[in-house]
C-alpha cells in the first residue's frame, strides 16, 4: 500500500506539465488505493456483472456472427469444456463475433468471445477446444481481474484510477448490492474499453499458465490434448501486422508458446489418441452462413 502511495506521489512529482500539488497527489494516491481495494474483494456476482458489461461493449464494436447453429455449436463445445474446469457453475457464454480479426477473448465471470476469423482457420473440434479451453483457463484463474488490479496500480493509474475509485465507492454506496454492482460494472467496463484494456497483452506467465491449464481442461473433456498445439501451429504461419486487436498483438508469439507447451505436453501424451472430431467441426463451420 505504501509503495503504491509512494509511486503515485512520484508520478505526480515527475509529471512534466503538472505543477506539484502535494494535496492533489495524496488524493490521487488514496483513490488508486481505494480502486485496488474495490477489485480485491470482487464477489462472483460482481465479476459476472463486469464480464457481461465488457461483453456488451465488445458486441457493440463487433456484431455476433449471424449463424445460430454456429453459435450453439461453439457454446456446446465451450460448456462441455467448462464443466471440466475449476468453475463449472459460472453462466458460461461463448459468442462468435463476425470479424476477420484472428483472436479470442476471455472476460471475467465466464464470457468468452471468439472471432470467426480465427474459427474458420482451425481444422478440427479439438483445435477449437484447445482455444476455448485456453480462454476458460483465463477465467478460472481470474487473470483479467488480476490484470485490472495491476492496471489500477500501474501505468493506468492516472487515467482510470480516479474512475475506478469512484466506481468502487459507488458500488458500495447505498447498500443495494445488486443495483450498485450493475452500475459499478457498467462504469468500470466503459472505462476499461475506452482505455483499450483488452488490447493490452496479459503477462506472459498468465498466457503460458492458460495454455497449460487449457490443455488439461481439453484433455479432461476427452479431446486430443494437441488441439491447442495445432491451433498455434496455424497461428505461427501468420505475421502479426498492424492489427492491434489480433492475437499477434495480445499474446506471446506462437513459436514461444509452442516451446513452452513442448515441455508440458509429455505429461498428457498418453491421451493423444482422444478424438479430434474434424468431420463434425467442418460440417458446422463449413455450413455456417
Amino acid at each position, binding site marked *: 500500500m505504501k509503495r503504491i502511495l509512494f509511486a503515485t506521489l512520484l508520478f505526480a512529482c515527475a509529471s512534466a506539465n503538472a505543477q506539484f500539488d502535494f494535496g492533489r497527489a495524496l488524493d490521487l494516491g488514496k483513490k488508486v488505493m481505494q480502486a485496488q481495494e474495490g477489485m480485491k474483494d470482487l464477489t462472483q456476482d460482481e465479476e459476472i456483472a463486469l464480464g*457481461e458489461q465488457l461483453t*456488451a461493449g465488445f458486441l*457493440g*464494436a463487433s456484431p*455476433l456472427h449471424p449463424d445460430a447453429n454456429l*453459435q*450453439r455449436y461453439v*457454446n*456446446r*463445445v465451450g*460448456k*462441455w469444456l467448462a*464443466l*471440466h474446469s475449476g468453475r463449472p457453475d459460472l*453462466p*458460461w457464454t461463448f459468442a462468435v463475433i463476425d470479424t*476477420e*480479426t*484472428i483472436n479470442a477473448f476471455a472476460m471475467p465471470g465466464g464470457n468468452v468471445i471468439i*472471432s470467426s476469423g480465427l474459427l*474458420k*482457420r482451425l*481444422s*478440427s*473440434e479439438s483445435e477449437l477446444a484447445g482455444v476455448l479451453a485456453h480462454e476458460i483457463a483465463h477465467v478460472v484463474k481470474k487473470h483479467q481481474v488480476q490484470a485490472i488490479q495491476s492496471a489500477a496500480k500501474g501505468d493506468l493509474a492516472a487515467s482510470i484510477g480516479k474512475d475506478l475509485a469512484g466506481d468502487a465507492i459507488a458500488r458500495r454506496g447505498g447498500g443495494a448490492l445488486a443495483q450498485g454492482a450493475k452500475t459499478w460494472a457498467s462504469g468500470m467496463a466503459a472505462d476499461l*474499453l475506452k482505455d*483499450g484494456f483488452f*488490447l493490452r497483452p496479459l503477462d506472459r506467465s498468465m498466457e503460458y499458465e492458460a495454455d*497449460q491449464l487449457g*490443455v*488439461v481442461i481439453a484433455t*479432461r473433456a*476427452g*479431446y486430443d490434448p*494437441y488441439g491447442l498445439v*495445432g491451433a498455434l*501451429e*496455424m497461428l*505461427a*504461419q*501468420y*505475421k502479426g*501486422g498492424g*492489427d*492491434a*486487436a489480433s492475437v*499477434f498483438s495480445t499474446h506471446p508469439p506462437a513459436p514461444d508458446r509452442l516451446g513452452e*507447451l*513442448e515441455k508440458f*505436453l509429455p505429461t*498428457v501424451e498418453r*491421451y*493423444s489418441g482422444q478424438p*479430434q472430431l*474434424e468431420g463434425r467441426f*467442418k*460440417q458446422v*463451420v*463449413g455450413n*455456417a452462413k
Partner: protein
Amino acid sequence: MSRMTLRLATLFLGLFLASGAWAQEQAFTNRSTELKDIGSPSGKTLASLPGDTPVKVIARSGAWTKVEANGQHGYVNVFHLRFPATVEKSSSSSNPLSGITGFFGGGRDQPKTTIATTGIRGLSPEDLKNASPDPAALAKAQGYRSDKGSAERFAKDGKLATVSVDYSEGGRR
C-alpha cells in the same frame, strides 16, 4: 430431404473437405528429426531429416504431422517443425466457399480476405474504444448458451469421455 438435396449436400461437403483442409503448407524442420511411417515414436524410421529440411505439411493431426519430405510421405513430431510466417494477400475472394469457409476453401496459396495486417477489415482498436454497449446482442448471445444436459448429449454424440487429469501432472499445483 430429397435425394437431389442429399446429393448436393454431399457434393458440397466433399468439395469443402477436399479443397482446403489438405492444402499443403510449407514448413521446415527446426532440429534433426526422423520421418516415421506412422504417427508414433515406435513407427519405422523412413528417413533422417537434418534441421532446416523443407517439408510440405499434408495434415495437422495431434502429436504428429503428416508431411512430404524429399518426395517421401511420413510423419514428423509436431514440435519439430517451424513455419515461415506469411502475410495473407489482401483481396476479396471470388471463391464460392469464401466467407466462413474461406480458410478451408481457399487453400493457402490462393487469395483470401485480409487478416492480421494493417488496414484489415476487422476489429480495430478504435472500434473497441469507441463502442457503445449492445445489451440486445449480449442477450442474444446468452440465448445461445448450452445447459449441462445439452453439453453432455453433445459430448456423447462425439464419443468424448471424461478422463481424470490432475493439473499437477503438468508440474503445476
